[in-house]
């Protein structure tokens, strides 16, 4: 299936990736090629086949509801772009 420029811009917005006008043409062509590859799947008869999300049918483990994490806020915030008083700073979202 061929992708349109409008489709691409919508995807980019959903994915929160800024796309410059100059990139749109190439991306449309490349993604259309990838969609052409994955479109092969449409021809496969999978009637009655259950989707498989995980190769080994594992059950999720449960653990006791106990606090196991130690406070490492300082170390984790040391790699953040902008912090103040233990908080992550982002541009203002509420006026």
């Amino acid at each position: 299936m061929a992708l349109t420029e409008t489709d691409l811009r919508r995807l980019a917005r959903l994915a929160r990736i800024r796309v410059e006008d100059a990139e749109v043409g190439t991306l449309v062509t490349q993604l259309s090629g990838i969609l052409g590859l994955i479109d092969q799947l449409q021809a496969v008869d999978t009637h009655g086949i259950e989707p498989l999300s995980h190769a080994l049918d594992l059950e999720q483990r449960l653990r006791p509801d106990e606090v196991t994490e130690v406070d490492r806020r300082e170390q984790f915030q040391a790699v953040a772009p902008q912090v103040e008083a233990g908080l992550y700073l982002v541009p203002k979202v509420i006026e």
Partner: protein
Amino acid sequence: MNLATTSLKQLAGALRKRQVSSRELAQAYLERIARLDPMLGAFITTDHECTLQQADAADSRIASGTAGPLTGIPVAHKDIFCTQGWLTTCGSKMLSNFVSPYDAHVIEQFKAAGALILGKTNMDEFAMGSSNETSFYGTVKNPWDLTRVPGGSSGGSAAAVAARLAPAATATDTGGSIRQPAALCGISGIKPTYGLVSRYGMIAYASSLDQGGVVAPSAEDLGIVLNTMVGFDARDSTSIQRPSEDYTALLEQPLHGLRIGLPKEFFSGGVSADVERAIEAALQEYERLGATRVDISLPNTALSVPVYYVLAPAEASSNLSRFDGVRFGWRAPQYDDLADMYERSRAQGFGSEVKRRILTGTYVLSRGYYDAYYLQAQRVRRLIVNDFKNAFTQCDVIMGPSTPTVAFGFGEKTGDPVQMYLSDIFTISVNLAGLPGLSIPAGFGQGGLPVGLQLIGDYFSEAHLLNLAHRYQQATDWHSRIPALASA
């Protein structure tokens, strides 16, 4: 001691007998890296001070008689494993400023074993690539021919081991990223059964497929390293809890009666003549060792590539949403508001292949397409798993080429992503099924470039696969051939 011709097992023996100290070993490898890596670009980071400190600690441990098999051995780590105090980039500008505040489980295991961190190796950005050409840190050159790719995504680890800049290196494999570069660089590489190696601290690409493993010259060395790497970890929700196993225990077993399954889909077209010849010669060697051939079929092999390029991008688009420029990683220097900050940070931090996969994943998960693409791919994934289940009722191991061709040239496949994707045709289905896979050197093809033989086993058959590889390596010497550059 000639590092170019000494195996990890021999190094361990020399350390134990005090013929060499860990410090001397570390210095010798660091010297090789400083001298040869500028030609290859296999390493992103080395830290002499840190490595030598670890070496001194290992020497004390050896002196006190509490050393294990890997104590004092330098190991290189793919830059996808979070390493406390070390720059951990995943080959991306997005993490070009990320000094990890914690260790991956794999790194913890190596530290506990007393192994040294020799450095962090180059890789395709976020492990997305088959040629190491998508790394923010530049391409890695194939040590056998500097105009060729080393494969990917673990191209740095494979090139480092091929040039004997490290006795072994960790790697990861989501669609072939251990086996394909191992094949193209003429070394051995194992992707264990999904769930054996913890994904904790291993930066996520496609979580239902990602699996850590090892590259080293020989199967015997792979087994020794795997013994340290495998282990249950409660912090990985899909980590497998089973009794620990010695992956070197079966190495010497004879191969009489071994049934080798040859999927017709791995041999019908698409494989270049030089690769086919080398694989045929390897199969004849196995026959001399007592094995027989069984013709089998994995009918859905061709569909593994489209299935992968639905599921892996879908998982990636979700996993990589964490890179938002808020808690860690790249933040755009200028932006208007919060949404603009996200969009610019991600546009600047991610390279083009990563963006393509995030956009593809966003597409297949979006409303109206989820059933047609994502669920359909999961259904075909089951068909692929069933193919393997049927195959293993007829044979003990599946063999074939690891890759359709020997190493290709830089830029040869970068113009058309689909061509690049198809180069993983023989490795991807193994990840979809979660099976263990191994690639070992099996001679040389066009241009004197290495050919890899792939061995695919049933779940948890790693020790058996290593046995099959080891017996072959006792009868041949492909795995001990080194590129001219490495003997310099």
